[in-house]
């Protein structure tokens, strides 16, 4: 055990020192060369560590996964599109795809709308930062801990007995029978998506709130004086002005929705038709040991995300123009 701590300390202390040494040493070496050559080479020296990591851990594996998706279970033989056919015909994977689409639409939608509404409402009270902290609290905790929190909220006991789950106890006082939230097919996906919304809305709220505060108060006052009510203000002025921010939040949330794993994994293990594609991928590796199919799922995820990639790059380019 002491070895572990030693390695960790070595890493914490050593890496910055090594990097500093790397920079200083490269400066020395570059110093021996002519100025224009220096200027040409130096950036690469600085950038090489980051780019290498990104290449080794993201670029190459992604390409490799694409190749693997055309091979069999143990990546020994080429099987063409079989894994993709499996993905689009197998009821389990199709179910997961359907659910991921549900997440995409509802998770993103409610997080953005919820974040906006909460930011707007909290903007008007004096104890705003206390309230924001409350909504923001789920963010630093892991999705695993959040899932466990909600496991207790969703608990079910037979009708007529004492309810131990907060939700069922609450509806019990209103006279309703308890609901098996995570099993019942009408409620289970919404329940999981709600847990996701619960964890992510704080994030959206904070970003939107920052932009909201940048909107000129005078503008809003003038509109009020012209007789606009609050709803009109929100819909016709605030939202359009926040459009860039809302887009950023929405793109981030779409990516999160596609990648969601922890919540279904912990709460239902994907059972009762709550599976999502990221968990399917994991299941193909861990349960079925089928690396070809797992890779095919990954490629499908990537393709789904490409439009966002293009969007991201376009936005980056636009920002660059300004800069």
């Amino acid at each position, binding site marked *: 055990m002491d070895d572990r*701590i030693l390695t960790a300390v070595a890493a914490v202390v050593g890496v910055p020192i090594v990097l500093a040494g790397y920079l200083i040493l490269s400066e020395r070496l570059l110093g021996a060369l002519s100025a224009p050559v220096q200027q040409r080479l130096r950036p690469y020296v600085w950038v090489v560590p980051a780019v290498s990591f990104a290449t080794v851990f993201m670029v190459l594996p992604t390409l490799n996964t694409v190749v693997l998706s055309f091979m069999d279970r143990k990546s020994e033989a080429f099987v063409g599109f079989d894994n993709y056919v499996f993905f689009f015909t197998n009821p389990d994977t199709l179910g997961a795809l359907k659910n991921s689409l549900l997440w995409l639409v509802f998770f993103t939608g409610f997080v953005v709308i919820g974040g906006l509404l909460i930011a707007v409402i909290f903007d008007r009270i004096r104890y705003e930062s206390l309230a924001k902290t409350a909504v923001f609290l789920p963010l630093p905790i892991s999705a695993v801990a959040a899932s466990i929190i909600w496991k207790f909220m969703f608990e079910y*006991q*037979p009708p007529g007995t004492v309810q131990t789950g907060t939700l069922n106890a609450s509806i019990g006082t209103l006279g309703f029978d308890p609901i*098996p939230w995570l*099993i*019942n*097919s009408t409620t289970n996906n919404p329940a999981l998506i709600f847990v996701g919304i619960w964890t992510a809305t704080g994030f959206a709220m904070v970003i939107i709130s920052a932009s909201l505060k940048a909107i000129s108060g005078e503008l809003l006052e003038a509109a009020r004086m012209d007789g606009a009510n609050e709803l009109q203000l929100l819909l016709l002025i605030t939202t359009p002005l926040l459009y860039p921010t809302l887009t950023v939040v929405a793109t981030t949330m779409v990516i999160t929705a596609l990648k969601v794993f922890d919540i279904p994994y912990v709460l239902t293990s994907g*059972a009762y038709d709550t599976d999502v594609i990221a968990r399917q991928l994991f*299941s193909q590796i861990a*349960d079925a040991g089928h690396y070809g199919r797992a890779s095919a799922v990954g490629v499908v995820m990537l393709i789904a995300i490409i439009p966002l990639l293009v969007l991201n790059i376009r936005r980056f380019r636009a920002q660059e123009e300004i800069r």
Partner: protein
Amino acid sequence: MSRSSNGRRSRVAALGVATLVLAACASSSPSASQGPLASGQIGGALTIWTAWGGGELAAFQKVLEPFKATTGIDVSLTTVRDIAQLAINVEAGTKLPDIASPPTADKREDWAKDGVMKALEDFIDIDAYTSATYPALVTCPEATCVDIGIVDGKHYQLYVKTQVKGLQWYNAKVFTDEPPTTYDEMLAITPPSGASLFCMGLESGSDSGWPASDMVGNIIMRQSGAQVFTDWYQGKHKWNSPEIKAAYELFGQMADKAYGGTNTALSTAFQRGHKPLFSDPPGCLFYEQATFVTAFFLEDYPDLKAVDDYNFFVDPGIDPANDGNVMGFADSFVMYNDTPQARAFMNFMTTKEAQEIFVGAGGTLAARADVTNFPDPVFQTAADVAANAKNLLPTPGDQMPSDMKKAYWKSLLDFVNDQSKLDSLLTHLDEVQAASYPQ
């Protein structure tokens, strides 16, 4: 600005150091406390993976104490729930633990032949082992040898404790009649007013559904016989066949009589499924589970006494031709790295002393037939059942490839949720069967 950020920085640093110190103190460090070795000790390290948690793990740790004391070996025990993780490591070529559970049946032959698993013959007295252990665990007719870890006549799985499954537990103060002799009789029993016939607890995290898989397995072996049962879990008998379908349907009748309805059965964790059995007034009459469940009884109702308060009868018969089929489950260890420490461990586990500690901790039978220090008479009865069984058949799920097993368990959950889907569930299982068993 810089002053406040300096203050912040040092506060953060203090927080960091405090946490590290706290964490370091909190974790116990066996290696740090290992002193110099006494004579006769081997020392060194041993890595063991086990799927056990809770009470079973605590019992195993008790078993390890004398072992560690006499050999001075530093045992590192890791709980690994999913045996598929081991398979990933083997295929990826990463370091394996020294000792762990056996893989699913489809991998045993390959792993034995490739030398991934080490043959017991190489380091234990195999004759002593096989004569002391329950015969069903160490001898086999041709077709089922792999099921108990015997490949090409060599043993690879060292059995250390066993369970009997398919027992109907009841509250002895509530059910005082003669046990039923057939399933039909059992299903016809009228429970006391307000109670259901069965309690069920099928939830178990990502392993949810496994209790139901045992119930269906017990039905199959009684309804259709040992051969069908064996062919079925070996992937040679189709799921969408009259035999399997009939078994699901009979199980469906049981689920219909479950306490709190199917929602409760699906939401209740198997460790807590027994609670209505002993509640006042009782919520149900029977609870089908294995021998280990008594440990959970005592967690919730510490004052229960065997025989007086709780007892069991074995699942009744269906077709008299198949009487004598009993489902058992045995925990075994496999050696993956041949080291002196691993050999010492395996030898230790064959001893009466080691297995007596397991049995004494409650909730289990040993693998050695001569271990009888059961904490209560109920276990002696269970041991007799195991000894007198015509065929002690293994838990079917464990003998299936990992994805088949998971699909099977999942199908049971979906079936309990909606019995009308049976045909499509069985067809899907046939597809999985075709894809998952090695050709």
